[in-house]
């Protein structure tokens, strides 16, 4: 399946995509257990720091301060970075971001680039834009390179190929990198990728990276990787372009201490990523650019109920803990960022297309409690539901059913009658509810109707006090 979704599935909603995913029961079990294991690693790491909850609270407050002084912090960041020799660009939306990146490359006559992980560039569909305009793009994060070769989208923001088994990777590398047929040893395959991508690092003139944190106080930005691919690209390239949503700003350098302690532990259970690179000035002779992107973020900033979603540091902990994500996979969210955080970010970008996402949840609250910056994810999911209904993005049948329900539940007499009728029907003619049209009945029995309701019992046995 191309892109992780083809033209047909782009029109499918989460429920349909999840149902397809679940059809392969064994694979669902494998996907669920793999991600639950990552959640457990996070727990182990978090429980080693007695100050873990204090760190989460501090991170949340630092990010809030960041959001509330965003204008001044951005101006300060730009000033410092510019004085350090970095060129700053501003992009209102995805298209402008793509155009800016392309124009930098054109000015330097570069038609081949390497990229390290950036969810922002996924959101902007940068790869497609550049390819359309004659620029060859190679993703260098191993997981991203795998999905790129397979023409799929990443399914997880930290573990892009988590939906694939070793066999799948072995097949892909055999096809594109010439590895041995049937060899699925991760060591062997990683070595092949190392050689294949090393050639690109050494030969390509432009490298594009994301930004994990941008420090207003000093104008520096930090990129965190385990593989070293962002650095292999940036330190060999003539042109380094770093792309960031403006919400990546943090106030002071020392705040990096808080975030770097939380990020990797939340994401994978490691105390820190192998490399945490602080870029402050271009390498002598190198051009360094930062593209600061809005693309709906300033709008989200203005939404009182949803602005906290901008605190996100893209750790993926919410995805690993989410029982729904684990059993439906990232592709069922049809969005650059999937899972719980994706479901509160995406409706801001396109309400109609993403109206299904806030409903892809039982509101269990696990996500909010693993979030290192304490985003009230499950509460925002609830609030998005209210917004989506008000904006009319809910099926007409549901609206009618809800209005009927409202009437019944506001009128005790009607409620009692409806209940009695329902139970009688179920007792006398079970096939009226226990049939193929009732989704509950597909894989579950209906509850057995008792002979009397509680209120009837109470009336008889407690004289209706």
């Amino acid at each position, binding site marked *: 399946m191309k892109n992780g979704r083809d033209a047909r599935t782009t029109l499918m909603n989460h429920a349909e995509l999840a149902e397809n995913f679940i059809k392969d029961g064994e694979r669902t079990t494998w996907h669920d257990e*793999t991600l639950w*294991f990552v959640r457990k690693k996070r727990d182990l790491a978090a429980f080693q720091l*007695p*100050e873990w909850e204090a760190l989460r609270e*501090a991170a949340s407050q*630092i990010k809030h*301060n960041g959001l*509330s002084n*965003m*204008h001044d912090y*951005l101006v300060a960041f730009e000033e410092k970075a510019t004085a*350090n020799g970095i060129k700053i660009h*501003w992009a*209102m939306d995805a298209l402008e971001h793509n155009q800016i990146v392309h124009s930098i490359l054109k000015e330097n006559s570069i038609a081949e680039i390497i990229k390290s992980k950036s969810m922002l560039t996924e959101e902007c569909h940068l790869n497609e834009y550049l390819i359309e305009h004659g620029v060859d793009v190679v993703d260098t994060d*191993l*997981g991203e390179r*795998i999905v790129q070769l397979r023409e799929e989208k990443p399914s997880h923001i930290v*573990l892009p*190929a*988590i939906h*694939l088994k070793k066999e799948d990777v072995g097949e892909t590398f055999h096809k594109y990198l010439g590895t041995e047929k049937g060899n699925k040893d*991760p*060591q062997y395959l*990683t*070595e092949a*990728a*190392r050689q294949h991508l*090393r050639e690109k690092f*050494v030969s390509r003139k432009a490298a594009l990276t994301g930004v994990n944190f941008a420090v207003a106080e000093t104008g520096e930005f930090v990129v965190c990787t*385990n*593989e*070293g*691919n962002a*650095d*292999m690209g*940036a*330190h*060999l390239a003539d042109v380094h372009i770093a792309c960031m949503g403006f919400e990546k700003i943090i*106030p*002071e*350098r*020392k705040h*990096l*201490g*808080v975030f770097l*302690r939380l990020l990797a532990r939340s994401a994978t259970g490691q*105390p*820190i990523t*192998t490399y*945490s*690179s*602080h*870029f*402050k*000035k271009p*390498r002598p002779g190198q051009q360094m650019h930062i593209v600061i992107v*809005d693309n709906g973020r300033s*709008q989200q*900033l*203005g939404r009182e109920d949803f602005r906290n979603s901008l605190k996100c540091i893209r750790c993926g902990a919410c995805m690993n803990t989410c029982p729904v994500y684990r059993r439906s996979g990232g592709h069922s969210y049809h969005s650059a960022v999937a899972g719980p955080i994706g479901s509160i970010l995406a409706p801001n970008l396109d309400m109609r297309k993403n109206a299904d996402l806030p409903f892809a949840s039982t509101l269990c609250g696990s996500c909010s409690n693993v979030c290192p910056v304490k985003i009230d994810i499950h509460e925002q999911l609830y609030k998005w539901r209210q917004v989506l209904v008000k904006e009319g993005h809910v099926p007409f049948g549901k609206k009618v059913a809800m209005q009927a329900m409202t009437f019944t539940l506001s009128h005790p007499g009607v409620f009692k009658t409806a209940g009695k009728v329902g139970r009688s029907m179920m007792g006398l003619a079970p096939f009226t509810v226990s049939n193929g049209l009732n989704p509950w009945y597909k894989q579950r029995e209906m509850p057995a109707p008792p002979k009397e309701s509680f209120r009837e019992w109470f009336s008889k046995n407690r004289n209706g006090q």
Partner: protein
Amino acid sequence: MDSRAYILEAIAKNQPSSNPLPDISSIAVVDYDVVEKFKTILEGIGGQAIEIQNLDEVVSYVKSYFNEGQRIISTLPELASVAEIGWQNQDPHTLENVELNILRAQFGVAENAALWLTEAQLGQRVAPFITQNLAVVIDKNNLVATMHHAYDRIANAEYGFGLYLAGPSKTADIEQSLVLGAHGSRTMTVFLLS
């Protein structure tokens, strides 16, 4: 209106009311010996810790594990007998064939076995990444407990590029199987100097 003005204006209009920054000066809880912690964590992340009394031991190490045909570089003048010293101004691409690079860190962080180096210690930015094997010398009394202590040490130092380096490069992108040696160095040895 240009994009910059548009974005900044939208942000100014939409940003919420401010709260003060939290005091993080005493957030760290340290109940361990920094050297022991550093060694344990380093081993856990795939690195190797070797305690040494002087730099001659590094020379011996290089002679034992590497042969003459392999390109070895370093920023430490004391290692001139086994390593190239003057590569800092070469084109970074020429470092592609380096087998072992030996650097010295400013300080290390016990809680995550990370070492902090800036350009002065790195020689070249790409140096710790492009090498097949990496070794870093650190004074034992230059270990701090946590990242908060680390940033206190860094304070408002000026640098063009700074790096926390923790262990060898790695990936678990293929079915969560951990593989050491992704695109950066395959191995990482830390010489703890007394």
